[in-house]
């Protein structure tokens, strides 16, 4: 089951603005109420259509960054731009349409009684109704290969099915940018394979937070390491993973026996 051949239509900016990066983060700072500084001046630029992996140790600020990309968290300092829009009022509604955030726990995103209603939730909030809404739901489910999950209840789904359903709920909004927080966690190898195929077939800008280094290598040509609330490394994924020093310094480790250079030679 692959998503090859199915193109998920995405909204496009006007032609004159085609050069704006999909995501531009400048000097982002954020401190939690308990005093912990999660983002300490973070800069990141992602071009349209790129797939970037965000790597880094636990607590580095990756999820916090994700929440700033669609305005759920508001920074203490710095800006986030999605296309030409600054992530702030009065643009928040449009930003949330453009940035599709897939959370770590799929159950947090599947809150309606059936998958179809969950997938319909987003577009319905955008104002779609009736046949147009149904068509959008069909489109999103097809893009992740989940047509059969329409009338299923979320808690009867397997981990992989939940992850794909959660992805569909976000794709239904036709986002420009997909932000995924540890999308392979809790998946068995088959589920992981399905997800790689689906994501690989989506021609959308993707920002993927993941501790799964082979997954990052397979899906994302570019990787960024975040540690201590800022970007500490930014390079092509094969090069980054071949640099043992950088990996060790930021508590990253390749799986036993995995040689990124061997993988690169195969391509």
């Amino acid at each position, binding site marked *: 089951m692959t998503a090859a051949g199915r193109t998920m239509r995405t909204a496009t900016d006007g032609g004159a603005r085609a050069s704006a990066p999909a995501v531009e983060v400048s000097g982002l700072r954020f401190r939690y109420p308990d005093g912990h500084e999660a983002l300490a001046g973070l800069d990141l630029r992602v071009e349209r259509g790129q797939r970037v992996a965000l790597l880094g140790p636990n607590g580095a600020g990756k999820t916090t960054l994700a929440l700033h990309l669609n305005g759920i968290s508001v920074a203490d300092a710095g800006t986030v731009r999605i296309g030409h829009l600054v992530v702030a009022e009065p643009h928040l509604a449009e930003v949330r349409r453009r940035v599709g955030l897939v959370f770590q726990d799929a159950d947090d995103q599947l809150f309606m009684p059936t998958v179809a209603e969950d997938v319909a939730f987003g577009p319905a909030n955008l104002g779609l109704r009736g046949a147009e809404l149904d068509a959008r739901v069909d489109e999103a489910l097809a893009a992740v290969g989940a047509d059969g999950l329409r009338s299923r209840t979320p808690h009867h789904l397997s981990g992989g099915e939940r992850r794909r359903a959660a992805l569909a709920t976000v794709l239904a*909004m036709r986002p420009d940018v997909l932000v995924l927080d540890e999308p392979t966690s809790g998946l068995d190898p088959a589920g992981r394979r399905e997800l790689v195929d689906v994501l690989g077939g989506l021609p959308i800008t993707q920002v993927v937070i993941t501790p799964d280094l082979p997954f990052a290598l397979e899906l994302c040509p570019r990787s960024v390491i975040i540690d201590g609330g800022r970007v500490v490394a930014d390079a092509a994924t094969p090069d980054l993973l071949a640099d043992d020093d950088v990996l060790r310094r930021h508590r990253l480790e390749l799986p036993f026996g995995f040689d990124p250079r061997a993988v690169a030679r195969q391509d």
Partner: protein
Amino acid sequence: MGAGHSHPLYVHAHSPTHRLAPEVKVTATVAFVSAVAVTPREAIWAFAVHAACVATAAAVSHIGPGFVLRRLLVVGPFIAFALLIPFVGSGDRIDVLGVAVSREGLWGAWNVIAKAALGATASILLAATTEVPRILTGMTRLRVPAVLTAIASFMVRYLEIIAGELGRMRTAMAARGYAPRWLWQARPVAISAGALFIRSYERGERVHAAMLARGYTGTMPEIGVPRASGLQWWTAGLLPVVAWTAAVTALVAPA
């Protein structure tokens, strides 16, 4: 008090009742149970009519008596209380099988048992033929505030997850040899309740974030659900109408 709720009563089948729209079923059930509740206790014939209605509904719904009887255990404590009443109730005594019991008490006991059993059976049939999310949709169609049904819908959605987390905490405690028998040993249980609240609340915050991320601004969007047809209302209305006819007749007819 809250025990025995872990499994909803829904029985998957394809009976006519299952196919009825939920708002129709809820209204019919409430109408029927109201008729039962106002029926004067002396009109035993009326209760026979009510029982026939319920039996018909059960047959049409493909729900067997065994299923209903098992679920009726939930009114057990009240039945037990009712059985005591003739012995402790006040008023004239009459002789039943050599034992002096209160006449009013006998009538009172009959009243409680009949109404409790009939009402519970009707509720059981409703729950057995209607999945919980559909019941909630029916409530929205019946003009219950959308906020309430939305809260109920989320409660139903996450109940299994929360109960599951609770179960895992208990298993972990049991695995470390915790087997309390007395209230003063219940501290870990109580602490786990506090921990569960925090986890539930934090999940609520995450769900809220997920809702915001998909454009939620505070009102649940209306996702179309087909309305019930007039025929459905007429069909479902038959039994409550019969029951009300019996009840009203019993009420106005001289004793």
